């Protein structure tokens, strides 16, 4: 029960973030390291998430590990009424590591308490998705060559978006970040995160308009504004086209600025941005593989 896990972004210290960044860079430079040779990794996806699963499975394959698991709960014994406790107990007898995605919040923490082998949370409902945050950090350090003094603009759904909350927590470990939040009032950054930044003496600014203020940005982190988040559809109609990034808006942005997005995008980044060298979201997805290789190697003490 003393296995090392990655359940929440707060489980890792700043030193561990930096170690993951170094390991990810090492795997990117030398992707063929068969460190998982002879090991079995279980990928338990109680709800489908093709992007995250493929990224993990690519990372495991590149490390030479074998994969067991399921891609949604309809193909597992959950349909027979098995509890999460029993599924995890059983699988931890077979595998050296468990990667788990589950629709219920807190399921990953619970699984880590039940399991005898390390557990990586690949998303537990609206709660945590720490490997996404680490790949976001890796994308920032790779494009900016630093994690200190970053002017980070977060745009879109800042109320419900778990990726922006976790990234905010992670970035607050580094020196002198500036946060700019751009969102409609209905989807503004929750108070608890603003109070957290205040308690650490960190600067943040809130905006409702998506204008040329982005010229100061080092990173623009875009998220989807989802229709189902609005109690009144009229409110959604009012803002749905306000938070769209278009190529012409990038004219006065800094040369080093890069655009990140956890994907999938719908319409919040216009396709005319894709060919701009500042568009980084597809590279960001590739960074996910190296970051996940790094996390696995770190948790299993393979390097």
């Amino acid at each position: 029960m003393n296995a090392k896990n990655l359940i929440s972004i707060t489980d890792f210290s700043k030193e561990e973030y930096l170690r993951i960044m170094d390991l990810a860079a090492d795997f990117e430079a030398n992707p063929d390291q068969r460190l998982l040779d002879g090991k079995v990794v279980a990928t338990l996806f109680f709800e489908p998430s093709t992007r995250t699963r493929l990224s993990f499975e690519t990372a495991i394959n590149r490390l030479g590990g074998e994969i067991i698991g399921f891609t949604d709960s309809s193909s597992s014994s959950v349909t027979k009424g098995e509890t999460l406790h029993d599924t995890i107990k059983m699988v931890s007898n077979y595998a050296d590591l468990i990667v788990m995605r589950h629709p219920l919040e807190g399921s990953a923490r619970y699984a880590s308490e039940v399991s005898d082998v390390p557990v990586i949370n690949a998303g537990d409902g609206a709660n945590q998705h720490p490997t996404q945050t680490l790949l976001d950090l890796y994308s920032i350090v790779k494009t900016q060559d630093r994690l200190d003094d970053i002017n980070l603009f977060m745009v879109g759904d800042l109320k419900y978006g778990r990726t922006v909350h976790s990234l905010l927590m992670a970035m607050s470990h580094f020196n002198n970040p500036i946060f700019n939040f751009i969102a409609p009032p209905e989807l503004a950054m929750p108070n608890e995160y603003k109070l957290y930044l205040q308690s650490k003496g960190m600067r943040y600014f809130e905006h409702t308009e998506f204008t040329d203020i982005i010229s100061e940005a080092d990173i623009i982190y875009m998220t989807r504004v989802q229709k189902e988040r609005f109690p009144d559809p009229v409110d959604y109609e009012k803002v749905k086209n306000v938070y769209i990034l278009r190529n012409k808006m990038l004219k006065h942005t800094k040369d080093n600025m890069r655009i990140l997005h956890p994907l999938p995008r719908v319409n919040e980044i216009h396709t005319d941005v894709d060919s701009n060298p500042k568009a980084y979201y597809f590279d960001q997805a590739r960074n996910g593989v190296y970051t996940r290789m790094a996390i696995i190697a770190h948790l299993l003490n393979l390097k």
Partner: protein
Amino acid sequence: MKKQLNVSAIKQGTVIDHIPSTALFKVISILKLDHCKDMVTFGNNLDSNVMDGKAIIKVENRFFKDKEINKIALVAPHAKLNTIKDYEVVGKYVVEIPDEIQDIARCFNPKCITNHENIDTYFEVISKSPVALKCRYCEKITHQDQMEIK
């Protein structure tokens, strides 16, 4: 007016006073007094100068550790304990909300794993007045007005 004991005195044991009337049976359940072999007497809806109807529980031959009794603080935050020996009060204690709470309250989040599997809840108490509990599992905060006892 002649002072009269509404619940008979005990020779030795513990008297838990100033329990809100609405919380009496929750306190009995939390302290597992419904499975207790010793004599337990209780009174409910008693007059009180400080609260709107109170309950009192007397447990013969039973002495509670602080950690054990503090479990009731969520439902009876002003409860007072008197320890009795030979019909005399030999000790007094006011309950205190502990820093961690195990398996007393429910997490308010309907999507939390603790509301779907048969497992104990664990909370970190991040505020004692008003009470705010952070779930170890889903990391959401249950506030006093959302709190429900298991």
